[in-house]
């Protein structure tokens, strides 16, 4: 074994040896395994988590790799309805218990409570909670319409193959950007990428982004991940703005030659770009 290989081995042990599994691993495994045995086929979904206030998305969004649900559909619908009822009562315990570890880590109880509080401040008190229906776009996603004093919102829950929750969305139709300053910046960034102006696209990158993502790598990623997969850029269909613990994240849904994709841009307080993602819609 070379010195390099020995060093790698030492680093791996230093990184991994301290890790211990949590006490819930065994019960989670049994529960997920039992669910899996009751199951049927479903379809792939991506994860989205957001809450909406006054027509604009205000909370959070994330993605997970798509996987096929094999949990009986009726059970997912019933669970989604229960989660929606709980959420309207500010109870997120069962919902978080059913999440994957990474979703639970990203979606803290505080974040969910705060998001729901913003929805209530925008839409008023809950009048009624409807029945769960399959979401047309994402068959592993169920939504429950919640009628509120000033309108209706949809609580959507996405599941993975084991029936674990990988996303929660609270949204209304027609959500639009609430940040007039950053929206032009996002449009300009997408336009620069589409036109091959990769150096210009990096104009608002912060120092870490600038050093970590040179113009040629940015161009390569755009050509491979956007153009080759989705076709040439056509137009920005919509931009939504999300607040993620102090950062502003803008999601530009782009019409491409072969479908749609999302360019997600994260900004810090000074408006510099701190993160850039090319995502499935």
């Amino acid at each position: 074994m070379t010195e390099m290989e020995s060093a790698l081995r030492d680093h791996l042990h230093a990184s991994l040896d301290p890790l211990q599994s949590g006490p819930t691993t065994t019960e989670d495994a049994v529960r997920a395994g039992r669910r899996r045995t009751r199951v049927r086929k479903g379809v792939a979904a991506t994860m989205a988590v957001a809450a909406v206030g006054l027509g604009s998305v205000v909370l959070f969004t994330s993605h997970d790799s798509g996987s096929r649900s094999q949990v009986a559909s009726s059970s997912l619908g019933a669970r989604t309805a229960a989660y929606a009822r709980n959420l309207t009562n500010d109870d997120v315990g069962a919902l978080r218990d059913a999440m994957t570890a990474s979703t639970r880590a990203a979606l803290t109880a505080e974040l969910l409570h705060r998001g729901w509080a913003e929805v209530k401040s925008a839409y008023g008190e809950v009048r009624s909670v409807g029945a769960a229906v399959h979401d047309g776009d994402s068959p592993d996603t169920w939504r429950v319409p919640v009628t509120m004093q000033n309108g209706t919102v949809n609580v959507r829950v996405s599941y993975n193959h084991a029936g674990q929750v990988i996303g929660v969305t609270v949204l209304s139709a027609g959500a639009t950007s609430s940040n007039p300053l950053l929206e032009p910046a996002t449009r300009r960034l997408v336009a620069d990428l589409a036109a091959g102006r990769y150096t210009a696209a990096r104009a608002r990158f912060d120092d870490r982004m600038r050093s970590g993502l040179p113009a040629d790598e940015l161009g390569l990623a755009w050509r491979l991940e956007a153009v080759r997969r989705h076709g040439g850029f056509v137009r920005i269909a919509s931009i939504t703005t999300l607040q993620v613990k102090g950062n502003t994240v803008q999601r530009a849904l782009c019409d491409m030659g072969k479908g749609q994709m999302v360019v997600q841009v994260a900004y810090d307080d000074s408006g510099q770009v701190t993160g850039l993602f090319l995502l499935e819609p």
Partner: protein
Amino acid sequence: MDQKSEEAFRAYVTARSGALLRLAVGLAGERAKGEDLLQSALTRAFVSWSRVQKADDPDAYVRRIVVTTHLSQGRRKRVRELLSFQVHESLGHEATPGVDDRQALLPALRRLGPKQRAVVVLRYYEDRPDEEIAALLGCSTATVRSQAMRALSHLRELPELASYRPVSTSWELP
């Protein structure tokens, strides 16, 4: 699954979940994704527990499920992350304090493809022989060796391992 089998499954997971988690985190490249990977793999193991129990080496069978689940997730992955710093930090991932942050290796591993990552973890963390890795990954030992070499050349860029880069020699004409 009958009660006796379920108890056996519980006992197995309780005894081995730590080691399996370390393998899963190494394969996934981060704690939270490793936990998800382990959860998916254990769900598969639960469903096929009767086969696991009948295997000559049940633990090897489950570890194989972890690796194949990792590879299949890699194939399904549809989201391309370009680069992100602040947003990920601010999402509040509940990684073990100090561990993920202290080590630059796990993030570097995420830059490798799923198969290369599996080779690195099985070869250098679990100390598995190439023949066993090849059987686990369903490829030849030559492929294991070539994947390992490619992975090493990527990882040489890591600052912590930079001092182990081979020294290049140059000659100047007088």
